[in-house]
């Protein structure tokens, strides 16, 4: 929870005036707090749009939308998660429609091979069967970004929210408007895919339990 959201919680009955608006002082606090999340929103936007210029547009659009509907924000709840929810909706409804980005998950396999080839081109040789840790240590940021950006929007999104931004499963479920079980399964599949991309192993990993050693 953000600082302002936390401070405001105890005064909740006074937060909305008769015209349904937060008092100006509350609005100002929320606007200032919202600004502190700009790096967080921007780095997510860059990975989602795969393009810094589109990311800037998406972040601006997010703030414009947030300020238009600021009166619907309940102080005391999570402002950062609320902003991410707005950005996610803006990405799905505006950006993806406009740029006609493919959202088809069946492309994932094709993309995996592309990244695999890319990793080999870049000097990483996963087929040498070295220990996975060694492969991991030799990866550059460019390799990581390429692998991440090759994931479908749905997969990339949960990885960014959980692994980069540190949101809890419950928060991710709210942001993406999906059940918590879907968050967990999507996160699981995304991470396995990402890990295979990064270590260069295209062989489907053994399901948990099969390689168990007791």
């Amino acid at each position, binding site marked *: 929870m953000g600082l302002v959201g936390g401070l405001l919680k105890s005064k909740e009955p006074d937060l909305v005036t008769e015209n349904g608006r937060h008092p100006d002082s509350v609005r100002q606090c929320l606007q200032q707090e919202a600004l502190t999340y700009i790096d967080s929103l921007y780095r997510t936007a860059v990975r989602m749009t795969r393009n810094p210029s589109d990311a800037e547009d998406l972040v*601006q659009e997010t703030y414009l939308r947030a300020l238009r509907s600021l009166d619907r924000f309940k102080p005391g709840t999570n402002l950062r998660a609320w902003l991410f929810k707005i950005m996610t909706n803006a990405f799905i409804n505006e950006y993806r429609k406009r740029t006609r980005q493919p959202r088809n998950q069946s492309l994932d396999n094709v993309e995996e091979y592309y990244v695999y080839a890319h990793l080999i081109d870049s000097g990483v040789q996963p087929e040498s069967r070295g220990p*996975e840790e060694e492969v991991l240590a030799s990866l550059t940021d460019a390799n990581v970004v390429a692998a991440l950006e090759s994931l479908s929007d749905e997969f990339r999104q949960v990885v960014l929210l959980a692994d980069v931004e540190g949101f809890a499963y419950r928060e991710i479920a709210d942001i993406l408007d999906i059940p918590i079980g879907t968050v967990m399964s999507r996160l699981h599949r995304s*991470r396995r895919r990402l890990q295979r991309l990064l270590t260069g192993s295209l062989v489907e990993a053994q399901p*948990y339990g099969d390689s168990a050693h007791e």
Partner: protein
Amino acid sequence: MSNCSETLQRLYEYIDRELSDEEQAEVQRHLDDCPPCRDRFTFEENVLRQVRRCCRDVSAPPSLVEKVRRICNQ
């Protein structure tokens, strides 16, 4: 003590701190006694840490911060 299969099934929930304190401690006990599982968990954590480090190394450009500040001060 829980076995390897049960422990591996909780891998991500453990890493994400989504288990109850009791479950978290149970996984921890297994990892303390089982080097192969411990290696596996460490590897998984390292992959995620690398992704986090790489992605967090990005800040909003000053020109964008300025534009958004203007939006916020409207």
